[in-house]
């Protein structure tokens, strides 16, 4: 049993190596809690748990939707793809409590009536693959009576972690997002309904099925109950993954990673996320507060940009990488995102046509938004728009042909992976 107000929760007992099954059962009371459909659904509903992958969809609603689907061959897919380059939470979570994630997935499976659990880990993440493989073997050796768990390793592309791309890969070995005109849409593996949940969501389900909704709500705020994993990078002493209760102030979170206490701005959510002015460090880190400030918690990513960095060039590098990660299925994404990156590059170089490039950039954002099969282009548009708002002085300087001071030092804070050649982008 973990004390209700104790932190960490999903990272409880982490010691640098994953807990084996018997230690796990000792640390987190063995499968107590009623996991049959109505009981777990009721607990999930009262807990107010929302998906931790970024979209924050209510887990109870998803369970109900999937439970209503007919057929006996439903599947629970655990999304541990960690496609956000700035996120490291799956690495930390599955490196600490793989069995907690699997417990949650198995509980969800019995709640919706699924027989199979599939864990998806990107194939360029061998450490996590090891942890999951070992955990599955331990459970098989124990001959636990539960849903069958298998591991799948799709390619580590950015959009491969999107849920429809994951299911597409499981169906046809192609990590490409699918077009879904009606939402919420029930994804299908062959003919059977699939529920995709982030690994952190599953870990929280594993806790709720043990300790209940009241326990879960004892941390966090009314509208964002529970805890969240935060990946801190950028101007920090050491990149950190920590578990914080929702509603903790940003300043506290930053200080626990010994980050720059007075940053210029924070990149929140992920590469398709939002910029937030550094003046808001006193704000509480929960969904309602962040939304009111025009930011989004997303997948729990925080990248710290100190004074002296150039937000425009950081955004340009991120957008260029995101454009390269487009699956190139939809025209507005395949052509629009490189165009955005190009406009930003003009702006960064502060050439004489900076003002035209800025105007074109704004217009292109409006044209691209909402026209892809998935939300990849929308995320990039959101990042660009918040950058134009948060760094408006630097943007104005760049547009008038004077590069800001930060861009002249050439310092970089957002860790953007290398651009891969188009021929090296593997989708299968």
């Amino acid at each position: 049993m973990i004390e209700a107000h104790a932190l960490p929760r999903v990272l409880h007992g982490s010691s640098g190596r994953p807990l084996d099954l018997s230690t796990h059962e000792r640390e987190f009371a063995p499968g107590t809690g009623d996991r049959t459909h109505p009981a777990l659904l009721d607990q999930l509903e009262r807990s107010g748990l929302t998906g931790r992958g970024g979209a924050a969809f209510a887990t109870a609603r998803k369970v109900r939707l999937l439970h209503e689907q007919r057929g006996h061959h439903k599947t629970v897919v655990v999304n541990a793809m960690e496609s956000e380059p700035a996120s490291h939470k799956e690495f930390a979570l599955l490196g600490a409590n793989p069995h907690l994630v699997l417990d949650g997935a198995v509980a969800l499976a019995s709640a919706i009536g699924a027989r199979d659990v599939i864990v998806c880990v990107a194939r360029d993440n061998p450490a996590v693959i090891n942890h999951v493989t070992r955990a599955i073997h331990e459970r098989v050796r124990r001959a636990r009576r539960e849903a069958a768990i298998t591991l799948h390793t799709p390619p580590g592309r950015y959009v491969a972690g999107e849920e429809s791309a994951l299911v597409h890969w499981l169906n046809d070995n192609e990590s490409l997002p699918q077009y879904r005109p009606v939402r919420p849409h029930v994804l299908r593996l062959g003919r059977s309904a699939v529920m995709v949940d982030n690994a952190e969501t599953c870990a929280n389900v594993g806790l709720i099925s043990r300790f209940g909704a009241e326990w879960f709500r004892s941390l966090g705020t009314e509208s964002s109950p529970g805890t969240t994993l935060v990946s801190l990078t950028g101007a920090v002493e050491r990149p950190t993954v920590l578990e914080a209760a929702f509603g903790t102030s940003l300043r506290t979170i930053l200080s626990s990673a010994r980050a720059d206490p007075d940053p210029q701005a924070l990149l929140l959510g992920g590469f398709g996320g939002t910029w937030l002015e550094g003046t808001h460090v006193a704000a509480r880190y929960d969904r309602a507060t962040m939304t009111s400030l025009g930011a989004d918690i997303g997948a729990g990513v925080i990248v710290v940009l100190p004074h002296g960095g150039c937000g425009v060039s950081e955004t340009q590098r991120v957008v260029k990488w995101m454009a390269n990660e487009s699956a190139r299925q939809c025209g507005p994404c395949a052509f629009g995102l490189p165009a955005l990156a190009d406009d930003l590059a003009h702006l960064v170089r502060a050439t004489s046509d900076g003002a035209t490039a800025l105007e074109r950039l704004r217009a292109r954002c409006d044209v691209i938004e909402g026209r892809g099969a998935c939300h990849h282009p929308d995320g990039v548009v959101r990042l660009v728009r918040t950058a134009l708002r948060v760094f408006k002085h630097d943007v104005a300087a760049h547009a008038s042909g004077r590069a800001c001071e930060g861009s002249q030092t050439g310092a970089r804070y957002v860790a953007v992976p290398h651009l891969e050649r188009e021929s090296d982008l593997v989708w299968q």
Partner: protein
Amino acid sequence: MAVRRRSGSFVLRVDPVLCDGFGHCHELAPDLVAMDEWGYPIITTTPTPYADAQELESARYAVRGCPRQALHIERVGEA
């Protein structure tokens, strides 16, 4: 010939994965479909009433004329 009055409105929708930017829809339904700088359709999001026979006809032409069969007509709330 009796004209059957239809209630409700429709929007034209495109499957962006299928769409390859042939541009036929813009030619066939210019009021409903604009074109972006890369030749892909920007479809108006304001619903058109089914009673507007001319627009309905051009929307149907666009659906039938799409070489990729990427378009469909979707009914939206009774308005």
